[in-house]
């Protein structure tokens, strides 16, 4: 099961030139819980090359949103930056597999 399977929308955006924030929107409480269980701050950090302990996860149950904030993978606009607004990094998160143990029925 991928992040894409439990989210209706994943949005990435600069939070200033030095940080990136990623909002994962779920349609149901069940999906939100699956995302909560299956996508840690560490996973997001590994996927986007952020150092250990630099990713913050915010759990917003009422909105059925999980938000990750991290140092931007490269300062906005600096040499080598590929995406000034940081929006396309959402796709890396969308494609991640959730860390779930699938239990066979019966």
């Amino acid at each position: 099961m991928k992040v894409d399977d439990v989210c209706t929308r994943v949005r990435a955006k600069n939070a200033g030139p030095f940080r990136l924030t990623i909002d994962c929107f779920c349609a149901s409480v069940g999906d939100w819980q699956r995302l909560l269980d299956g996508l840690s701050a560490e996973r997001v950090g590994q996927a986007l090359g952020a150092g250990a302990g630099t990713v913050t996860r915010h759990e917003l149950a009422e909105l059925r949103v999980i938000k990750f904030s991290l140092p931007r993978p490269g300062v906005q606009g600096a040499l080598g930056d590929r995406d000034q607004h940081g929006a396309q990094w959402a796709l890396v998160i969308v494609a991640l597999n959730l860390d779930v143990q699938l239990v066979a029925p019966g």
Partner: protein
Amino acid sequence: MVNSDETRNTPPDEPYRTRVLVPSGVLGLGFDREALARGVRMAPDIIAIDGGSTDSGPWYLGTGSSKYSRAVITGEWCELLDARHTAGVPLVIGSAGTCGTDRQVDELVRISREWAVRRAVPLRIATIRSEQRAGTLLERHAGGALSGLSSDAPSNEALARALSECTHIVALAGAEAFTEALATGADVVIAGRATDTALIAALPLARLGADGLGNASAGTGTGTGTAPRTDPADGEAYRLAAGAAWHAAKIAECGALCSTGPGSGVILVDIDRDGFSVRALADEARCTPFTVSAHMLYENADPNVLVEPGGRLDVSRARYRALDERTVRVTGSSWRPDPRYTLKLEGARPLGHQCSSLVLVREPRYVQRIDEWCELLEQRIRADVERHLEVDPDSVTLELRRIGVDATLGALEFERGAPVEVGILLIVTAPDADIALDVARLANPSMLHLPLPDDEAMPSFAFPWSPAETVRGALYGFCLDHVVEVSHPTELLRIHSEWVMP
């Protein structure tokens, strides 16, 4: 027609209400004209719009330029001056011309003066200039007034160097600067870089008065009085009232992005001492508890806290309630004053000069072996740089981005398709412009004709342009992630007002 009712949803403490009309998330992005006219008829106390951000990258600050078309900015600003004239209330803009440098403030002043002459309308214009001199900040830095916002902020020495190398530095003005500018009786306030929220929060905050309780006699429109720094010991009533003003400002700062019709632009917020209500004014747009509360997430690293000069907004106890199908009432947000008053700094410095070149590879044999070809191409260009140019090869950076393969995500790309064609974008970064151009020219024959080892001697690929090279000019980089502590909110800002008498 829900919006035809112009009195509904008025909060119970009407005398304390400040009605702010926000035409759009940023000047230059367009707005729904019918919705704006509707907002003007609804008797706002002020019209407020943001003019910029760092969103589009460091070049705009580095060069002091605006991102949007001059024609569009002029047209939209004149429409807003007309709306202001009809409504008879102040019009406020912050972060003029994307980057908010002094020159961009001057540009909007020029457009405003021309409008006043053309319409034969006297206009009092107040300006807030927030551009900073490196020398001033270096002195403050030596006195320990600058502090980094992240753990990997540069050392003192590196920070001093960065300050010296910046072509432009701006400080983000807070609400007090707008209050002071409005207190001159200004019809129009044009500010350089400011926080997106300050221009919206300023008037309701000024009306709260320095005693921490609402001051109904503050009236509407201009004449808000002076704006001393609010005493942090004002108590819970003040914290909730100020929290409502700041939270309303955060929700409205991107215009209709807090609604179901983000492209329509126009938003109206009614701010009182207990909370605020927000509604979208375009026919197709609705504010719902979800769209409004979700907007607090936008561009903000912490969904519950928004840091501003002089304190922070805490929305962790905010409640969102639908008043009708397009209006949301928000209560419970709180403002926590900070004992230090700081202004965030933004600076951009040149990091070299760039030249780019684009070649299109459509030949299937090469598309299939594009990794190998790009590797050969890079080796060839590097070898040629070493052979022909009298520069330190390490001072020249070559990037070959493969459009159609992984140009967007680079090493983070996780999918591999079978593209029909691949664009090879060469980006050269060098210490000066002549070297960058010469390296790109030196690369041209290889980009045009380089064969795979087992292929015909001289294939030819497609260049879309002549000349093949595009001179990109200087590359700029953001280099300040710092705040400067000040003893008064407007200490590093310059506020000025003038009459234009046609």
